[in-house]
């Protein structure tokens, strides 16, 4: 468990892995600013900062929810579908309340917009409650319960969209609902007034909740050892109810924002796979999937790190960056989590490359990193023509470094 006051590290404002992540973010930003041939971060700092802030806020909102569930020892796989579902609930509610206005793409007014947003957030509470019921009363594993809603909610949202549009427009219904209201356009166009403040407020709320309230300590206790928490008198079912509702409500807030961002509620493909981004951000930020460990600053740095890396890939590889994005993000996620655990590995005396497994892993890693380096540098304007040599060089450096780590570990073995 990691309630802040019980650890000596808490005297520092940030923990080791949070400081490491912060340093990694700074390094990625500096490298991007220097290597990017357009130097976008230096020439257009505001635009670059705003673009990253938008994506950090959108992902961060539901990553906080995913983080709380993980700290409580659970998992919520349904965030992406919850985003699609809540967005559809929001647009459908507005469609039912003001069909003519919505069809003609005119402003729906504050009351209808409020009702749409309130219905979306209420849908989050209800789905969170459903998760908690399935997990605590039916005793389904959290993975299974939220996997079911991952699949089911998107389908439900599609059916709802078709049903509501068929009712209001006639015919057999539509697959999307356009939302062209000035309130939603305002949300999209003024990220400093809505996306970012909502994210900051949610982060502050979660920080205070986890660090300074009884409920927060119960969340850590539940994640650390559920049986012990129950025996010590904590009503674990209530704590789980809160955690899953918090996760679903944050996803539903994000759902409303995605509708604003895209001017449409599109249940088929809105938020597909986003739950994994949220879980990845929380894990990179130091949350343990075993539960009981994790902090809000860690989750925030995890989100910022992921978004900065994605932005960096797009800035450095100017054409076809999407090909490399997943690969590079995957590598940095593994590196970030491994780096965060280096002290534990050292303390436990465990070898990083044990036996034959380690012997084969070292050249595999060196070869993979070399090939990836060669492929990506081929697209960096300044380095064109040198790709193979740079790849070979990097592979050799990685091979020698990892081999020396292996030799050091073998020689220091008692």
């Amino acid at each position: 468990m990691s309630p802040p006051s019980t650890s000596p590290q808490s005297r520092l404002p940030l923990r080791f892995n949070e400081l490491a992540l912060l340093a990694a973010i700074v390094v990625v930003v500096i490298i991007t600013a220097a290597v990017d041939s357009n130097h976008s971060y230096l020439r257009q700092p505001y635009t670059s900062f705003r673009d990253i802030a938008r994506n950090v806020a959108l992902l961060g909102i539901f990553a906080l929810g995913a983080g709380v569930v993980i700290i409580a020892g659970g998992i919520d796989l349904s965030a992406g579908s919850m985003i699609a579902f809540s967005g559809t609930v929001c647009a459908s509610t507005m469609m039912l309340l003001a069909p003519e206005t919505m069809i003609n793409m005119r402003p729906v007014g504050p009351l209808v917009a409020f009702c749409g947003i309130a219905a979306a957030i209420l849908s989050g509470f209800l789905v969170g409650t459903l998760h908690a019921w399935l997990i605590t009363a039916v005793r389904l594993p959290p993975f299974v319960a939220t996997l079911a809603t991952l699949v089911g909610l998107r389908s439900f949202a599609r059916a709802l969209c078709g049903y509501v549009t068929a009712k209001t427009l006639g015919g057999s219904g539509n697959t999307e609902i356009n939302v062209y209201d000035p309130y939603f356009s305002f949300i999209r166009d003024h990220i400093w007034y809505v996306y970012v403040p909502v994210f900051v407020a949610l982060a502050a709320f979660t920080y205070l909740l986890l660090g300074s309230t009884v409920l927060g300590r119960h969340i850590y206790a539940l994640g650390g050892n559920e049986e012990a928490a129950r025996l010590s008198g904590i009503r674990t079912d209530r704590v789980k109810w809160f955690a899953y509702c918090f996760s679903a409500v944050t996803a539903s807030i994000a759902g409303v924002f995605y509708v604003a961002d895209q001017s449409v509620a599109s249940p088929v493909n809105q938020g597909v796979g986003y739950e994994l981004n949220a879980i990845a951000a929380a894990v990179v930020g130091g949350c343990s999937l075993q539960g009981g460990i994790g902090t809000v600053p860690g989750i925030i740095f995890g989100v910022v790190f992921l978004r900065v890396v994605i932005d960096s890939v797009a800035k450095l590889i100017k054409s076809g960056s999407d090909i490399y994005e997943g690969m590079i993000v995957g590598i940095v996620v593994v590196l970030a989590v491994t780096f965060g655990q280096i002290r534990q590995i050292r303390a436990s005396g465990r070898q990083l490359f044990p036996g034959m497994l380690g012997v084969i892993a070292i050249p595999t890693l060196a070869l993979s990193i070399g090939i990836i380096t060669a492929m990506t540098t081929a697209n960096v304007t300044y380095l064109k023509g040198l790709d193979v040599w740079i790849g070979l060089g990097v592979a050799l450096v990685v091979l020698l470094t990892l081999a020396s780590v292996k030799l050091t570990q073998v020689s220091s073995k008692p």
Partner: protein
Amino acid sequence: MSPARNFLRLLMVALALTAIAAGCSEKRTRIVFLTNGSDPFWDACRSGLEEGAKKYELEKAGYTVSMEVNNGKPQGQIDKLRQFASQGDVAAVAISVIQADNAAIIEEMKNLQAKGIKIITVDGDVNREKFPDARPYYIGTDNIVGGRVLGTAGKAILESRGKTEGGYVQFAGFTDNDNARNRMNGFKEAVGEAFTEKDRMPDGMDKSKARDNVRNAIANHTDLVALVGIWAYNAPAIAQVVTETNSRDKYTVVTFDAQAVAIEEMAKGNIDAMVVQNPFDMGVQTVRLLKAMLTDDQATIKEMFPSAGQPNGDIYTTGLRVVAPDGETPLKPELFDTKTVEFMKLSEFREWLAKYKLTSS
């Protein structure tokens, strides 16, 4: 009686009922239209299918038509095609192929044909050179022509603004999709070599990614003069990003299709030209052709494909419109081939949409 026996009995009854149900639904009566993903474009096509069903008296012939919306992924189409093959009531399938070269999709299309199910492509075709026997007919836009029309419009607007060179980026869901590839190639050909294609950016039909792609294109390529939206949702994505970055005056924005949001953005002056397909007519013609194929109505097939057997004789082209903003524009009807392209101002186009109760096209 033991619970195991009870369970076995129930299972046998269920199997027997399933077999009876399967026997009852032997008659193939259903025409299915499988989209490539979710977009209002398909809502207009669905209206066309309903109109076609009425116009060509589909019910009287013993058939129904419905639309299945794919999830924007090739695996989604493969799974749906496999389902159609195993469902005894599917008589014919129209598909907008998501990836022109996807062998697994082509294989499933051939499997359907082998089972006697009629199959045609609409809007998104297969790679005809590689897979000539995957389908007998294609209905939709001639996307190369569509791309050329967009390129002609883009070039005219750029030249009217004194731009004779510079870069452009094209945005689409998938850059290896047949219609996207042809449109982009057509645009590149018509806009000319004086303008350089800097990138073709796919977004995987993720609308947030579509916006991020525009932001990255603007940041990465300092000499851009034009932003080209190839799929319907790319138009609002480009329009809203150029507004957000206060860079509308730097770029010529030309796009395909006319989503409701894109129409509003053109009215606000954020889009210079839209080349608009006719998904409504695609729906109508799909019903017409598939009914003719199912009832062996050779006269109708001959009427739709008079040059069948000759190169490109298996293509039925639905019309294109060039929509320009109301007020001053360098675009004129004489820039385009009036046989294939209808020129419209935005207000005229809105009247046409209202006539058919459509919000997008």
